[in-house]
């Protein structure tokens, strides 16, 4: 059996274990004092002098996700067996997934360009409640009363104020979709409420005794939105506004999920939910390196199917794809990936900024291949068209 390290440096098992826990924390596994206590109790219950056993025991005691489970052995070896690099003290660079030091932000000036607006309208929530156009009862929320800017192509919308507006629209849209509770209840086998009318009707068969209770419940909760945004070169002019739209979507609906793709795919939900716009901008710019290059829609969607979709997409999900459909992958790949995605999701909706152009027809090979696999192919080139999406979603 191999000896473990640091035996001389610590006073007892508790201290050695605490050092290991700190090592795990530094490497991004969330463990706290409660886990340390539990791990000590667990090690006491087994023969902890056996390295193999201690490893297996700690593995089940401190990990909580498949990713941590698969990473654990490496971290264990690195700490106890000298086989890897060990960080024994907190150094300058924080673990992955955390905010980089503020001093980076100066060296990332492009971050502002690639990311949603600074100064997000935090007062949107309060301001909206007194807005009569909200029309909450009907679930109808349309930005029809928008000023003239709403009709312009997204390309011309580069001013901060307009970007903020795109974000507000997305927020209102997401909220409208989420809060759209139908007033009518639906009959159900199990449910919190008793349907009096039906119960009385059924009691006739029992000589007037209400023996069989009919129940009812709210309609199913609204669809969850998963948005995939194309940020390749051809989409650059639209990307900023769409990113703002995505940020609004994720910010307003905690169940929504957002991804970016160009030649590869990244999940940006966490990055977009950061409260501080600068943090969000920095995170996004780190995530979207290579943005504005080529497009591999088919490959990106296939990757999505093979990885995230298993968790993020089910029969209660609407998938939004925001892309112009110019793809460098063979169209068959895109068609197949979409077909597979559509079987998994409730609805697949493609928003194309080019569709708003006069005389546009989906003749790009990728787009043509995608058409048969879509539930809806919609225009999303103006703010009004984005806002009008709500009507489409109401029917899903």
């Amino acid at each position: 059996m191999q000896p473990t390290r640091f035996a001389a440096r610590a006073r007892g098992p508790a201290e050695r274990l605490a050092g290991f826990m700190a090592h795990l924390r530094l490497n991004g596994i969330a463990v706290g004092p409660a886990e340390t206590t539990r791990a000590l109790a667990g090690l006491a219950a087994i023969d902890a002098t056996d390295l193999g056993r201690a490893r297996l025991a700690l593995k089940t005691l401190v990990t909580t996700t498949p990713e941590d489970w698969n990473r654990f052995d490496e971290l264990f070896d690195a700490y106890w067996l000298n086989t890897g690099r060990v960080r024994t003290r907190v150094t300058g660079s924080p673990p992955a997934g955390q905010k980089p030091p503020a001093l980076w932000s100066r060296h990332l000036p492009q971050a502002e360009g690639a990311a949603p607006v600074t100064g997000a309208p935090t007062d949107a929530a309060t301001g909206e409640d007194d807005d009569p156009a909200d029309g909450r009862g009907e679930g109808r929320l349309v930005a029809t009363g928008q000023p003239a800017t709403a009709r312009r192509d997204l390309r011309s919308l580069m001013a901060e104020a307009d970007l903020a507006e795109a974000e507000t629209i997305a927020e209102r849209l997401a909220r409208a979709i989420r809060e759209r509770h139908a007033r009518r209840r639906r009959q159900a086998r199990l449910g919190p409420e008793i349907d009096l009318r039906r119960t009385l009707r059924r009691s006739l068969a029992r000589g007037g005794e209400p023996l069989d209770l009919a129940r009812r419940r709210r309609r199913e909760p609204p669809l969850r939105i998963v948005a995939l945004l194309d940020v390749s070169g051809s989409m650059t002019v639209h990307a900023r506004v769409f990113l703002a739209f995505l940020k609004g979507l994720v910010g307003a609906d905690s169940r929504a999920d957002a991804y970016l793709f160009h030649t590869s795919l990244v999940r940006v939900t966490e990055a977009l939910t950061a409260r501080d716009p600068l943090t969000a901008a920095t995170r996004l710019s780190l995530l979207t390196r290579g943005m504005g290059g080529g497009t591999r829609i088919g490959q990106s969607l296939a990757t999505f199917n093979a990885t995230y979709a298993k968790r993020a997409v089910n029969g209660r999900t609407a998938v939004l794809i925001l892309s112009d459909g110019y793809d460098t992958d063979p169209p068959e790949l895109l068609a197949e990936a979409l077909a597979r995605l559509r079987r998994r999701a409730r609805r697949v909706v493609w928003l194309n900024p080019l569709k708003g152009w006069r005389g546009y027809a989906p003749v790009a090979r990728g787009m043509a291949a995608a058409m048969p696999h879509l539930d809806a192919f919609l225009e999303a080139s103006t703010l009004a068209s984005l806002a009008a999406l709500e009507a489409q979603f109401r029917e899903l």
Partner: protein
Amino acid sequence: MDHLDLQRRLAETGYVAGEPLAMALHLSLVLGRPLLLEGEAGVGKTEIAKALATIQKTRLIRLQCYEGLDAAAAIYEWNYQRQLLAIRAAAETARVEEASEERLFSERYLLRRPLLEAILQPVPPVLLIDEIDRADEAFEAFLLEILADFQITVPELGTIEAVSRPHVVLTSNATRELSDALRRRCLYAFVDYPDPAMELAILAARAPELEPALAAQIVGFVQGLRREELEKTPGIAETLDWVAALSGLGINDLAASLATVQASLVCLLKTSADQAAVTPEVIARLVDRAA
């Protein structure tokens, strides 16, 4: 008893557990913590709860989760029809005390659902909460409360304390992200597809009549199939189905009967796209490599 003993005893019931899984199970028994098992469908997550109940010689109480599962279906419900009949009967016979409120809301009229049933067993049962990821988040929060204290409050009756603490096993297919709170409450084990040696051991335990040469071929074939690009990768359950099908068809050598092998693949491939993807050429290649 240590985890190797547990592994051995599980093997006696026909369940071949890897060492990490045996350790996780052992610690969850020793520490009295719920065990959360994650992994693809068909890797034997549900089976382990059954095997555990067998070696503990105790009851297995199963709660299958689904979207819309609520407290009435999971914990308890009042037997409304019986209560109503009792009221009517009491009115007819003018014995009002029979229908008094205390009697109507007593345990006699309480329908026990799995969670309540589990904490009222005199011998600690194995409580299997299957596919917890299918239940709503609201139910997950509810479950957390019960897993923390093992007591259930019925407003009309008061708080019901656990007679014994059940061994809790939760399984998840990761169709939804589980909450951190639930994850941290449980011990965790990820159950992966078995490696060839382990799959052979499983076949030996579950289908002892199988020829060793054929078993090796089958394992090689299935392991190869798992490396192909498939929508639904076959699990151990599928392998066992296939073994049953092959022995039913009287096949002794995969290479000698490729056409029958293809026909029997319905046991392993569960979508039409996968069946189309595994062409006779692919089968020939896999069989060739498995030999």
